[in-house]
C-alpha cells in the first residue's frame, strides 16, 4: 500500500520526522489520547471531576444497557441511519440522473439541486423548526393539518429525518453527477446500439460504473447519521419524551451536562462500534455487488 519514497535514503535522518511530527502531535493529543481515555473511562468508575476512581469491568455497560434512555437513543440512531442512507442515495442519484445530460437550463437546476449543501446545520435546523411549527409554520397550512410535527412522538423522528436527508442531498448530488458524467460515452453508446432500453442501460452499465460513488455516499452518510446531534439540540432537546434522543445527544446530556464520564464513554464506544460495523458492512456489500455484476 505505502509506496517507498521517491528517493530512498538509507541512513537515519531526523529530518523526515520533523515534517510528520506536527500533524502527528495533533493526532495524538486530540484523537488518540481522547480515544484511549474514552476506552479507559468506559471500564472504570469516574467522578464528576473526571478522575478515574477504580476499574469496574463491564459494570458501566451493564448499567447503560439497562437504561430506558439508552434503548430509545440507540433505536432512534439506528432508525435515522437505516432510513437516511437509502433515502439519501436514491434521492441524490435520481436528481443526478435528471441532471446528468447537459441542457440549456442545466446550470440553473444544478445550482438548485446542490444549494442545500450551502446551508449550515444550525440555519437549516432553525428553518425546519419554524416551518414545522404547529401554529405559525407553513407546513400545516399547506397540508391543512394541525400536527405538532416536532411535538408528537409519532412524527418527531420522521420530521427530523427529512431535515437530515435534506442537509445531505446537495453534496451527494454533486458526487453522483460528476461520477455519472465521468462514464465514458462509448460504453453507454455500445449498449444503446445493442438495443438496450434506458432503464437497462442505467441498471447494467451506469450503476455498476458509479458503484464506488454509491458506496462512498452511503458510508459517509451512515457515519454522519450515526453522529446526529446538532438538530436534536437545537430543535427538540431529545423530546418529546426522548422520541428524538440520539446516542451523541445522550452522550452530551448524560455525560457532558451531567458530569458522568463513564456513561458518556460507554455511549461513545457503542457509537464507535456502530460506525465500524456500518462501514464494513457497506464495503462488504460493494465487493459483493461489483463481483456479482
Amino acid at each position, binding site marked *: 500500500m505505502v509506496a517507498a519514497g521517491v528517493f530512498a535514503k538509507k541512513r537515519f535522518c531526523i529530518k523526515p520526522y520533523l515534517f510528520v511530527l506536527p500533524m502527528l502531535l495533533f493526532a495524538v493529543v486530540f484523537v488518540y489520547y481522547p480515544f484511549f481515555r474514552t476506552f479507559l473511562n468506559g471500564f472504570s468508575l469516574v467522578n464528576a471531576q*473526571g478522575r478515574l476512581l477504580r476499574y469496574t469491568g463491564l459494570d458501566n455497560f451493564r448499567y447503560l444497557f439497562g437504561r430506558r434512555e439508552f434503548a430509545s437513543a440507540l433505536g432512534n440512531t439506528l432508525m435515522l441511519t437505516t432510513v437516511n442512507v437509502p433515502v439519501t442515495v436514491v434521492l441524490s442519484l435520481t436528481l443526478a440522473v435528471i441532471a446528468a445530460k447537459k441542457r440549456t437550463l442545466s446550470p440553473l437546476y444544478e445550482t438548485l439541486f446542490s444549494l442545500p449543501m450551502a446551508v449550515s446545520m444550525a440555519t437549516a435546523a432553525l428553518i425546519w423548526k419554524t416551518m414545522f411549527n404547529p401554529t405559525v409554520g407553513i407546513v400545516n397550512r399547506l397540508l391543512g393539518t394541525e400536527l*405538532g410535527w416536532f411535538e408528537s412522538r409519532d412524527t418527531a423522528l420522521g420530521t427530523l429525518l427529512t431535515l437530515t436527508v435534506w442537509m445531505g442531498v446537495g453534496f451527494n448530488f454533486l458526487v453522483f453527477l460528476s461520477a455519472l458524467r465521468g462514464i465514458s460515452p462509448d460504453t453507454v453508446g455500445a449498449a444503446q446500439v445493442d438495443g438496450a432500453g434506458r432503464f437497462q442501460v442505467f441498471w447494467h452499465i451506469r450503476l455498476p460504473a458509479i458503484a464506488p460513488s454509491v458506496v462512498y455516499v452511503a458510508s459517509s452518510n451512515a457515519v454522519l447519521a450515526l453522529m446526529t446531534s446538532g438538530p436534536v439540540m437545537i430543535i427538540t432537546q431529545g423530546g418529546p419524551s426522548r422520541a428524538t434522543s440520539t446516542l451523541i445527544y445522550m452522550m452530551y446530556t448524560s455525560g457532558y451536562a451531567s458530569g458522568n464520564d463513564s456513561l458518556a464513554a460507554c455511549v461513545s464506544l457503542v457509537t464507535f462500534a456502530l460506525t465500524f460495523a456500518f462501514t464494513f458492512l457497506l464495503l462488504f456489500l460493494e465487493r459483493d455487488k461489483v463481483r456479482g455484476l
Partner: protein
Amino acid sequence: MKKVLSFVLIALIALGGTSLGEKQTRIVFWHSATGDAGELLGRYVDEFNVGPGAQLGVYVEAVYQGSYSDSASKLQSLLSAENEEDLPDVMQLDATGKVRYLSAKSAYTLDEALIDHPDEDTGDFLAPALENWRLNGVQLGLPFATSTTLTYYNASVLDEAPDSLYDLMYIADEYELEDGVCVYACVPNTPTLANWLGQMGSRLVNGNNGSEQNATELDCLEDGSLLRFLEIWKELYASGALVSRASSNDEFIAGKQLVMTASSSMISTLDERIGGAFELGVSPYLRVSPDDGYGATVSGSCLVMFKHDDERSEAAWEFVKYMTSDLVQAGFAMGTGYIPSRVSAVKTDLWQDFIREAPEYNVGFEQLMLTPEGMRSVTVGPAADFYYTIQDVFTSMLEEDTSPEEALETLEEELNGLLTQYARANP
C-alpha cells in the same frame, strides 16, 4: 496563503487589543432570561452600569448563556475540567444547577457574603422564595426571578376556573369542544410531579426533596402517593381531557388548548400574544383532587456568586444587591409576572397600585402563601436525566397503555438507579 496568514495575525492582534479592559472592575453575569424578562433584565443591567455601577467603578457584562439547563451544563463542564477561572462572577441559576454550584470551589455563597458584610441581612425576603435556594443548610444566593406554577385557562370558553384534575374530566364531559381543541396537555416532569405529590403531603425524593440532605431514593412509594397519582393521571387520559404532549404556549394562545399549567412568569407574554383574542384566566395550580391541598413550590431562579478576587466579589455583591432591591424586584415583576422576592417590594405603592389594576399578577403571590411551609422543590444530582425519565415513563404509560403499577415499577427502578449511580461516583 501568506496573505491569509498575515490577515489572520492582524485580526487576532486587533481583537486582542480591543478587549483589554480599562481601570474599572469588570464582572461577568451569565443569565438565561429571554423575551420580556430578557429585555427587562438587560435594561436593569444597563441602569446599574450607568448608575450605581459607574459610581462604584463596576461594569457588568451580561452574557445570555442559553436556557437554564444550557447554562448549568456549561457550569458543570467547567467544574469537571477544574477550570474555575472561566466561571462568571454572578450567575442566574435555576433549581437544576444547585448541586453543581455548591460543588464549585470558588462558590461565594450568600452565607459567606453575609459574613463579609455583617451589616446586611435577608430578613426582608419572602421566606419561601429565600428558602428555595437553601441546600444542605447552605444559603446559595438571593432569589431574583421568583415564580411559581399557575393554571392558565381560556375564560372565554370556560365559565369558571378549573380547580383540580377532576374538573378537567368534567370539562371534557360537559363542554362541546370544537375540532382540534383539547382541554389540557401536559407531560409531568420533576417539578410538576413534585408539586402534585406535595399537595398529597408527600415528597418525590428523601431529604425533603433533596433540599436538606442528598437524595438517595424515592420517598413517595410507601405512602402510595405516586401510585395514586399515576392512577389519576391514567384516568384523566382515559376521560379524553388530557393530551399527552408537553404543554405548549403556541397551542394555548391559538385557542386550541383550554387549560395550561405554566410558570407565573408567562403572564405578560401570554397577555401580549393573545392580544384580546380571548379572555385569559389565571388561577392557582391545579389540585390533584378536591380532597388534596393547594400548592406549588417556588420556581424561577436566584443569583449566585463566584469568587475570583476580593475586588470582583465585592463588585458582584453590589450588583446582586441592586438586582434584588425592592424597586428592581417590583418593576421586574410588573413587566413579566414574576413575584417580587421581597416583602418591601410587595408593599411598595408601585406594586400595590399595579395589582389592583391587574389582579392576575397577584395569583402567584397568593399561591405561595397557600403552599404548605416546608414544601421544597426537588434537588438531585442527575437533574436532567431525572426530568426526562419521568416524562418518558408517564408518556409510555399512556401511549403504550401499560398499567400504573408497571409504570410505578419502572419509575422506581430507573430513578433510584440514577440516584445510586450518582452517589456511587460522587460520594
